[in-house]
């Protein structure tokens, strides 16, 4: 290594002080979170505030014969009881969904899922509201229900959505059946069918990515406060996309948008659950407008799990065609998507099945065809992106299970099959058969690094020995090795194909340097725990040479923050992170002009040096950004307007495509079905790394949720549509005891189109993790010819596999 000069040392010290990109800066928000000083919606107490609670349907499908609110209204402390009859004259008994459907706010003639909202009781305290819900007398006439999506489109299936039964063209084209929502197709059907007809090897498997729930620790909640004098509404709520909520509230309430103040304070986790609009938000708003006092609505755990947006419920018939040597030639997928009672998926509007067409994965599959049919059932609505970009966990699960099934069929090692079919580094930007342009990647390098680190060859040897021992009766344990190599697609997105209700999916940053050189910056995104206050400040610190500790990041107040589409689908870094860099660069350009004026040189004679502009060749002649800031306000160059701030609305030219190689080693107790994760190794490539510690934290969190989904978490219904286990006793949320130890690693392949080369990471571990766990389980039983084993892989289901295979004495 070269000897460091004093100049180098000085520069290194100044760089370190900034705590900019690449540094493991501690999360600034944790100071308040770890001391119980966060400020959540439920912490809000306003004078005169009253409380709402819902009367919910015990039935999955029933006609409402009558609703009698007399007894509830007579209870002392009850202020009002709203039903659909009250909302209908206002046109608010239904609300639009993000997917182009409508959703009942309060059920009018029918209920369509268990726990659906039927009436909203408002009382002077939370306890009275709850008591009063038991006094609303609703007479139901039960109807036959549909729980199995494969029965939705049977000719004699009961019609669920009578409100739209005559509307045979939906938001995404023709509907084939009253319970059909849409059919979405992409790819070349004829070419795909032709390859399948002639292929040497084909595989076909119905892969179920079962229904689960994002289950943030903080449930959904809102406080609405309508000022009758000013005609202004302030709405605090658990909103991942506060600006979109403001626009939607304006469109449905008729209030002018500038008289609506939407505020998302601290949010205790979202994972997609807090993107949509819920009946509780609407009812708190209506309640406040009608009563003129603030109305609070706070969901409990059971309500959150059983009524607000679920995730997954994709039934994916997945096929691959290949040569005998394992070269994949084509992919064909049909998805039956169970959307529940209303189509309230949170996808960009033109994408009814999200980005399911990323299902060709990390492989160079030249020909493919995908069909998705969405159907209604008597279950809660949703279908949100639970810690992933839109339907990407589903897509990656399909391809990553399918390549394993293929590898087994042709007797090839599953890692080798992947290496054989990867898109090569020199093929980027790569155009996939289903329409995406992958920005950058180096899959072979990542995969080989992962295989070396985990000791893949040795693990396979150990497994072979254990299998032999099992067959000799010397052990009752099965060893599985799970692999997944995923490509995410995040950062929605370019306005040519991404919008939400017509609003293009840009995002924004507004940066203002104060005269003394500290900064406030506001973004259109909204952290739910991702650490935005830490990482955006690091981007600005590096771009502008102001220490991150002197930069305040503010999000969530729609009056002050620039318009943005919010945080989900790993879009904050790819879109708002880019906006931040671009806005900072605008400021820097102005700062350069000011510095030139201060130093009496030409702008072109200056160069940037960590935190200052210096004269080329004369390093002792410089002006720091702090000095420039003072000058910007107090002695700007003649004819230049004072001040130092900029705003950028960033329209991404493309998505970003993070990827990674994951390995899992699992041991399964055949007699109980209990699976233990011995090792889990995650190599992530998210492009430029802004804060390695936050990345690691995101990977740990995403993997933990992946572990949960694969190994037991589910929202299950019995045949009469009762939702089972909607509490944390049954809904599997792993604690520190169950959670495996995570080994993390990385490679860096920057995004070529992103101003700082960053790709986003918050969701990759979930997307890659779910199939990795499932592949490990499947691999454990593979030598016994178990066939595909569906998730979730909880103990009793694995025990059933053992029963089926005759493994129990």
């Amino acid at each position: 290594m070269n000897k460091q000069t004093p100049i180098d040392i000085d520069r290194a010290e100044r760089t370190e002080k900034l705590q900019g990109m690449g540094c493991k800066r501690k999360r600034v928000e944790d100071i308040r979170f770890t001391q119980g000083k966060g400020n959540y919606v439920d912490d809000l107490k306003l004078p005169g505030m009253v409380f709402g609670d819902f009367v919910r349907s015990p039935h999955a499908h029933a006609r409402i014969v009558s609703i009698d609110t007399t007894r509830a209204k007579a209870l002392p402390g009850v202020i009002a009881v709203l039903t659909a009859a009250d909302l209908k004259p206002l046109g608010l008994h239904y609300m639009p969904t993000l997917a182009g459907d409508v959703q009942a706010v309060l059920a009018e003639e029918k209920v369509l899922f268990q726990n659906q909202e039927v009436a909203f009781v408002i009382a002077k305290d939370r306890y009275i509201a709850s008591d009063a819900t038991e006094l609303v007398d609703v007479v139901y006439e039960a109807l036959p229900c549909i729980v199995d999506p494969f029965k939705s489109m049977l000719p004699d299936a009961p019609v669920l959505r009578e409100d739209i039964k005559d509307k045979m063209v939906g938001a995404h084209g023709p509907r084939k059946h009253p319970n059909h929502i849409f059919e979405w197709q992409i790819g070349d059907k004829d070419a795909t069918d032709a390859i399948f007809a002639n292929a040497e090897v084909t595989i076909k498997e119905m892969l179920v990515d079962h229904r689960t729930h994002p289950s943030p620790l903080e449930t959904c909640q809102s406080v609405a406060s309508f000022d009758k004098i000013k005609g202004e509404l302030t709405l605090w709520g658990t909103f991942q996309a506060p600006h979109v909520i403001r626009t939607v509230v304006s469109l449905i309430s008729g209030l002018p948008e500038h008289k609506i103040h939407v505020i998302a304070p601290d949010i205790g986790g979202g994972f997609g659950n807090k993107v949509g609009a819920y009946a509780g938000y609407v009812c708190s708003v209506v309640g406040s407008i009608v009563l003129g006092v603030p109305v609070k609505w706070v969901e409990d755990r059971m309500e959150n799990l059983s009524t607000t947006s679920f995730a997954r419920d994709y039934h994916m018939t997945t096929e691959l065609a290949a040569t005998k040597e394992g070269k994949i030639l084509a992919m064909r997928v049909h998805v039956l998507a169970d959307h529940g009672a209303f189509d309230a998926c949170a996808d960009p509007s033109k994408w009814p099945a999200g980005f399911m067409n990323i299902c060709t994965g990390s492989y160079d599959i030249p020909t493919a065809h995908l069909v998705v049919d969405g159907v209604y059932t008597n279950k809660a609505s949703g279908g949100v992106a639970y810690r992933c970009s839109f339907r990407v966990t589903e897509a990656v699960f399909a391809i990553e299970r399918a390549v394993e099934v293929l590898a087994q069929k042709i007797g090839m090692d599953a890692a080798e099959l992947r290496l054989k079919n990867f898109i090569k580094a020199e093929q980027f930007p790569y155009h996939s058969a289903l329409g995406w342009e992958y920005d950058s990647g180096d899959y072979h390098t990542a995969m080989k690094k992962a295989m070396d680190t985990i000791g893949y060859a040795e693990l396979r040897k150990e497994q072979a020995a254990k299998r032999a021992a099992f067959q000799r009766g010397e052990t009752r344990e099965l060893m599985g090795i799970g692999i997944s190599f995923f490509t995410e697609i995040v950062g929605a997105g370019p306005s040519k194909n991404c919008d939400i209700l017509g609003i293009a999916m840009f995002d924004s940053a507004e940066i203002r340097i104060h005269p003394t050189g500290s900064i406030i910056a506001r973004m259109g995104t909204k952290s739910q725990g991702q650490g935005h206050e830490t990482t955006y400040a690091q981007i600005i610190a590096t771009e502008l040479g102001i220490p991150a500790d002197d930069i305040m990041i503010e999000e969530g107040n729609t009056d002050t923050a620039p318009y943005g589409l919010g945080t989900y689908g790993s879009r904050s870094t790819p879109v708002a992170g880019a906006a931040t860099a671009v806005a900072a660069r605008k400021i820097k350009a102005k700062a350069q002009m000011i510095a030139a004026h201060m130093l009496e040189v030409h702008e072109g004679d200056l160069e940037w040096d960590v935190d200052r502009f210096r004269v080329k060749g004369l390093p002792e002649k410089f002006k720091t950004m702090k000095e420039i800031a003072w000058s910007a306000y107090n002695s700007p160059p003649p004819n230049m307007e004072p001040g130092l701030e900029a705003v950028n609305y960033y329209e991404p030219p493309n998505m970003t495509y993070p990827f990674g190689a994951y390995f899992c080693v699992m041991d399964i107790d055949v007699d109980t079905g209990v699976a233990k994760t011995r090792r889990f190794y995650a190599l992530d490539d998210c492009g430029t790394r802004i804060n390695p510690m936050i990345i690691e934290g995101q990977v740990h969190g995403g993997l933990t949720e992946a572990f949960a989904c694969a190994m037991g978490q589910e929202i299950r219904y019995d045949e009469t549509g009762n939702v089972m286990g909607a509490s944390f006793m049954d809904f599997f949320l792993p604690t520190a005891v169950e959670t495996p130890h995570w080994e993390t690693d990385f490679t860096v392949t920057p995004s070529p189109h992103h101003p700082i080369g960053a790709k986003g990471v918050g969701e990759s571990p979930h997307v890659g993790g779910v199939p990795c766990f499932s592949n490990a389980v499947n691999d454990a039983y593979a030598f016994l010819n178990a066939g595909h084993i569906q998730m979730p892989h909880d103990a009793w289901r694995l025990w059933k596999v053992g029963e089926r295979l005759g493994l129990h004495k």
Partner: protein
Amino acid sequence: MIPGTFEYYRPDSVASVVALLAKLGDDARPLAGGQSLIAMMKTRLASPEHLIDLSAIAELHGIREQGNDIIIGAMTTQHELIASELLAKYLPIIRETSLVIADPQIRYKGTLGGNVANGDPGNDMPALMQCLDASYQLVGPKGEREVAARAFYNGAYDTALQADEIVSAVRIGKPVAGHGYGYEKLKRKIGDYATAAAAVMITMSVATCTSASIGLTNVSETPLWAEAAGKALVGTQLDEASIAKAVAAAEAITNPASDMRGPAEYRTKMAGIMLRRALERAKSRAHG
């Protein structure tokens, strides 16, 4: 998850609890650690109008020796059971069982009395108490009486306890020194009730099993004392054939519900597996 309205009482003697219960009737419930009752109140599965908190009653606390018996006050917490040196010496199986109940925070609140009086087949202590042949001391308006754990449970949330009685203590005979014990529990995660669990107490004379008592948790409406399974082991060398017989006898008396922990047939089989594993551990610990 918001409870209904109730009146709250905190008497400081057993006599005043009994008087309150007599006065307030069926709408009153004793409150111990609240770890079962408050959860039921939040989901409104229970809506008592009067809650009588037992925590201020000194005579309900504590663990003591009385001749050949150990007496544990009803308000002794699971944490205290784990920490007790007396229990570690005479009844280490109570510690082993307590450690697989819920999580440390819940164990600081949850009590032995609440656990045995609750009548939830998911509770771990009742089957253990049956295995140990413990008896419960009950106090009511007519004075004290004692009911054997093996005769206490009629069905889910249905016990020999009358609405105007409380459990004041649990009495357990000291097992012989050198006994073997094991409590084995299968659960989905920390804080979960058993998919199935088995409590085993054995004594061995050289290689022969001279006594065996087995309790099963959460595989029926009530805890189960697997009498026939225990008998199948006595006089044997705990060889595979005898163990298989005991396991079959234990499985035969189960009648579990199918729930999110698994279907009934799985939970029955798991009762057998837990018994096998508890027995293995008990055997390795026994020296006689």
